[in-house]
């Protein structure tokens, strides 16, 4: 049966939207962010208890004194659980999402009630919004809206909109038809019929819809946390992944308190706001008689109460702000960040929490404004690929996070690993005494219930177990690998350990479970788990360009196991919410570590140039542009001031011999430039070859199957139209081809050598290549065309092209004394054909004027090159 490529289509739609509607998404992001920040500022600013008092007055106004007291107690409990700030963040998020939802839902509901079309159109859309699992659009949401509050709010809006629309629709339809007719009979316009009759009468139903909207919005808090939205969801999400029951209950309780408050208040809002509700309330009160418990202050009284408390709160805040102005910041000498904010994403794994808080502190000390975001793994990668997260510290490669890396690789850059090796394993409690290796598991399936408890189905370890490890030990028949989540695996482990029942779980080291329980890591005699992951630092590909300093620091970041576990323990012991203090006191016990992790320029070993100016000459030839811009970048990073100058061959040698140019990188020796070398070599020094061999050749695309050598060409003249596409007529290669190569292979009769220019030749090649037509061109190596196209260099068995050159770095003879460090680096400088080809190609793609940028991107994509070429002292 035909496979409907729905998945492909949606990916196309997503990328189309990303490319074409991004400004709209950006506008939405700005608006939602602005709203959230505003609301959060208002809710987060006052003293918790004062705000609790204000909210209690609102409860008093809406529902009477008992509700007021209960509201205050509930909110005070949140404060005492130290969850006030996240609770207010959650409240802000719910308020913003609900306001936007209602603003959209009420008009849509009205439309649906009044138009048959609207109703028919909206119904399936609403069904889709309500039932499509939020995760499905949460991750793409990151592409459009980045991480944090906005995609969370959007997902919340999508999820909570349907009841808003439906209840509005229902409310309006429920209004007695005779009333609407009466309004019309008195000449009311449709608009006024809606405003004066339908909406007021539908208001109780619409408010019930609002109540539903708010409740659904609250139910999204945990899912919101997975894309980095702050609030109670984060602590619940953390609790889930750490199987921290206590923390989960506290966070959950706070959510429940907020939910009850919002639910009761919005329900009561109907009685206060809608005329019908007011009517019903008055009736009920007159029936029961007024009592103290049912007393509700008039709106004006309540308003004054709120105002008074708000003024007190404002006053206290002013006083507090004055006090807090003295917060110490990075001192000017170490302030390299200048308040630049950088988004650091992290997942809920202990080593990531520890290392991320560590770097948060380090970066703060360096004057950056690091912004820590807790996220789900998938969300983290998506967010980093989009650039809303700058970097993260916990990628287990090459196995565990392989699928994420494969998917987002092109937008990311690997800043190297800071810890390793880790290991993946199957572990059993050590009271299961007869199982020591994976092979021991065989035949004991019944003991373990035929089950190995796994983690998230997408995890690399699961794939490895399924495809390699279990079959390798013959366990795949007897055991079933159950996929669930890390949290439930750990919960399972905990339960089994308590009841001393055998269990086998998929685990990895380092992991705190090893210190909490006595576990046996099953050895892997066949080595099927592989060499073990290392923990890598990944960043968005633009990160090294945007934050060269931080990239530099991260690249040299390493941590020993003892340090890491020490830090993890410190963070773990301090408890959630106190990570930062834990890191600070840990750092205090490790003086000098900050300077080691993030050396400041000036005292930095990286800055060995101290602003010394060095002049680098180059020819406008592809390989020299590439190499020279590469060194321009490298030397600048090392503190040199590079003066890049373009020359033609003759004047270059002159300038270099008299010291106007310090060095150049494109000496084709011993042949092509031999005459210049002969003339000037006494004032110059050869620092050695960085590329060899070069060659001149005739090349055909590799889809021309039967032509591999120049001697093959003669028989295929008609295929190539009897033409060999050449370059500029005056060049050495052209005369070589004309005078010796073509005659040597008897090609001078059947082939015309077409003279033109290098760009024209390349354009011809591009066109022919696109159409898969045969073409033969005069080319040379190194050339970026070899990395852009798949080409066959035709062999030259008769040696008609002559001997090969190599490319040397040449310098003025005083250069090694004046710039010993650069001279040392250049002597060891070497690029492979692939490296040079890809660099040339990148520069070619970036276009003229963007060479420096292209080099930076290339360096970022080739981590380690920098350190190899310009190692520190």
């Amino acid at each position, binding site marked *: 049966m035909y496979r409907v490529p729905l998945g492909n289509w949606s990916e196309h739609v997503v990328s189309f939207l990303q490319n074409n509607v991004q400004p709209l998404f950006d506008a939405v992001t700005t608006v939602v962010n602005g709203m959230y920040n505003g609301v959060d500022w208002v809710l987060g600013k006052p003293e918790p208890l004062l705000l609790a008092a204000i909210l209690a007055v609102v409860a008093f106004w809406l529902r009477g004194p008992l509700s007021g007291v209960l509201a205050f107690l509930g909110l005070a409990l949140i404060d005492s659980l130290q969850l006030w700030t996240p609770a207010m963040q959650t409240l802000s998020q719910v308020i913003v999402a609900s306001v936007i939802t209602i603003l959209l839902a009420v008009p849509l509901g009205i439309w649906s009630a009044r138009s048959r079309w609207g109703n028919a159109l909206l119904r399936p859309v609403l069904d889709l919004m309500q039932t499509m699992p939020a995760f499905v659009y949460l991750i793409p949401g990151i592409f459009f809206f980045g991480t944090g509050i906005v995609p969370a709010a959007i997902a919340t809006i999508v999820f909570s909109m349907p009841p808003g629309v439906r209840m509005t629709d229902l409310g309006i339809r429920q209004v007695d038809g005779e009333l609407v007719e009466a309004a019309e009979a*008195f*000449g009311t316009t449709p608009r006024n019929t809606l405003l004066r009759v339908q909406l007021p009468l539908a208001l109780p139903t619409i408010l019930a819809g609002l109540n539903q909207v708010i409740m659904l919005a609250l139910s999204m808090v945990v899912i919101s946390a997975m894309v980095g939205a702050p609030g109670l969801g984060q602590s619940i999400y953390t609790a889930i992944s750490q199987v921290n029951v206590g923390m989960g209950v506290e966070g959950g309780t706070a959510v429940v308190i907020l939910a009850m408050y919002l639910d009761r208040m919005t329900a009561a809002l109907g009685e206060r706001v809608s005329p019908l509700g007011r009517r019903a309330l008055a009736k009920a009160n007159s029936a029961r008689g007024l009592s103290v418990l049912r007393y509700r202050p008039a709106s004006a009284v309540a308003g004054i109460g709120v105002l008074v408390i708000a003024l007190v709160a404002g006053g206290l805040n002013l006083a507090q702000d004055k006090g807090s102005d003295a917060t110490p910041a990075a001192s000017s000498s170490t302030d390299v960040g200048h308040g630049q904010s950088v988004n650091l994403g992290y997942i809920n794994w202990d080593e990531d929490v520890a290392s991320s808080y560590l770097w948060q502190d380090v970066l703060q000390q360096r004057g950056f404004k690091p912004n820590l975001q807790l996220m789900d793994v998938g969300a983290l990668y998506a967010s980093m690929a989009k650039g809303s997260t700058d970097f993260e510290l916990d990628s287990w490669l090459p196995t565990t996070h392989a699928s994420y890396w494969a998917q987002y690789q092109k937008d990311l850059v690997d800043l190297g690993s800071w810890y390793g090796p880790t290991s993946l394993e199957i572990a059993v409690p050590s009271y299961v005494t007869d199982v020591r290796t994976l092979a021991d598991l065989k035949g004991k399936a019944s003991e373990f219930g035929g089950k190995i408890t796994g983690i998230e189905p997408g995890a690399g370890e699961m794939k490895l177990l399924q495809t390699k490890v279990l079959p390798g030990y013959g366990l795949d028949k007897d055991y079933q690998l159950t996929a669930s989540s890390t949290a439930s695996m750990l919960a399972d482990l905990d339960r089994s350990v308590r009841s001393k029942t055998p269990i086998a779980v998929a685990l990895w080291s380092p992991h705190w479970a090893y210190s909490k329980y006595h576990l046996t890591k099953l050895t892997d005699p066949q080595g099927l788990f592989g060499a073990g992951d290392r923990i890598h630092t990944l960043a968005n590909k633009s990160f090294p360009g945007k934050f060269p300093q931080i990239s530099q620091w991260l690249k040299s970041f390493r941590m020993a196991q003892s340090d890491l576990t020490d830090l993890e323990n410190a963070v773990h012991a301090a408890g959630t919410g106190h990570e930062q203090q834990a890191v600070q006191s840990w750092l205090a016990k490790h003086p000098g570590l900050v300077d080691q992790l993030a050396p400041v320029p000036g005292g930095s070993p990286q800055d060995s140039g101290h602003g010394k100016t060095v002049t680098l000459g180059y020819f406008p030839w592809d390989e020299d542009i590439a190499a020279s811009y590469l060194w321009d970048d490298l030397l600048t990073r090392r503190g040199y001031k590079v003066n890049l100058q373009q020359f033609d061959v003759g004047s270059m040698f002159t300038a270099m011999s008299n010291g106007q140019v310090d060095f150049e990188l494109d000496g084709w020796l011993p042949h092509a430039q031999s005459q210049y070398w002969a003339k000037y070599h006494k004032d110059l020094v050869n620092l050695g070859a960085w590329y060899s061999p070069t060659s001149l050749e005739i090349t055909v695309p590799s889809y021309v199957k039967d032509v591999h050598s120049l001697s093959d060409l003669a028989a295929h003249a008609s295929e190539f139209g009897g033409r060999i596409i050449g370059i500029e007529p005056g060049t050495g290669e052209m005369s070589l081809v004309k005078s010796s190569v073509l005659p040597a292979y008897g090609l001078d009769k059947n082939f015309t050598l077409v003279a033109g220019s290098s760009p024209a030749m390349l354009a011809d090649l591009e066109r022919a290549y696109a159409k898969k037509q045969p073409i033969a061109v005069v080319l040379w190596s190194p050339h970026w065309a070899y990395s852009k196209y798949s080409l066959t260099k035709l062999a030259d068995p008769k040696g008609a092209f002559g001997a090969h050159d190599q490319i040397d770095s040449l310098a003025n003879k005083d250069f090694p004394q004046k710039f010993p460090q650069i001279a040392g680096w250049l002597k060891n400088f070497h690029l492979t054909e692939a490296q040079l080809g890809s660099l040339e190609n990148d520069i070619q793609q970036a276009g003229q004027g963007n060479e420096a940028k292209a080099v930076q991107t290339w360096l970022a994509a080739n981590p380690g090159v920098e350190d190899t070429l310009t190692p520190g002292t």
Partner: protein
Amino acid sequence: MTTLEADQLFKVFGRKPDDAVDRLRGGVDREVLRAEGTTAAVVDASFHVEPGEIFVVMGLSGSGKSTLLRMLNGLTRPTSGRVLFGGQNLTTLPDKELRAVRSRRISMVFQHFALFPHRSVLENAGYGLQVQQVPREERDRRAAEALRLVSLEGWEQSWPDELSGGMQQRVGLARALATDADLLLMDESFSALDPLIRREMQDQLLEIQHNLRKSIVFITHDLNEAMRLGDRIAVMRDGRIVQQGTPAEIVLAPADDYVAAFVEDVDRDRVLGRASQSAATTAGGTAMESADAEGSR
């Protein structure tokens, strides 16, 4: 004062209504159309209502009388035919002007009162004036006056749900009277009330009509009510008006067996008493009419 004239009104619901009207004119029975899924609610209805006259349309439920009434103020657009009111053809009037006519010159009283539950009695009575954008003070004054007319002074600040059915319908009547419209459309306005209250309301309506002399089109399925209120009566059956005339004419000379069966149980003496009064009205003297009206009670 203005005359209301209905001229060959048709209302057909369903597919191809214009076709259906042509076929009905050509004598096709409406049962034939019903089998095709097209409902002819009103077929070829023509009548006129003079100023100061109560014109009762009587018929069983489903006879099309409510549809006919709604065509008179344009709530339902006729499929064919014209409604002329005060020299204007309401059928061709654009929505905006039609709303203006409804707001100032035609008002309506409903079967189930249709009071706005979120408005006080006074606000309900003043609703039509609010639509006309009469300033609040004048609106309240005129609404209170209309409430006094229906003997509801003192109840202005109450809510509709605090009133009995009869009182609620008096608010409905006050709402209709407050706009000072020339034409009152009353759709089974007293049917939902207890017989005693209904009687009271009928008396009150007659008294008000005696003073204000509006044109009233009154829909009912109750023959006694029709006889009691109507200066002239139209009997409807299956969408057609089968007979028009004074109550006496209807009782004494029923047009067909259907009408005859209908009027069988009517208290003839009463009707004939009213009939003589009606005849007097048509003959002309106001003073004499009012004396007779007193006498007939």
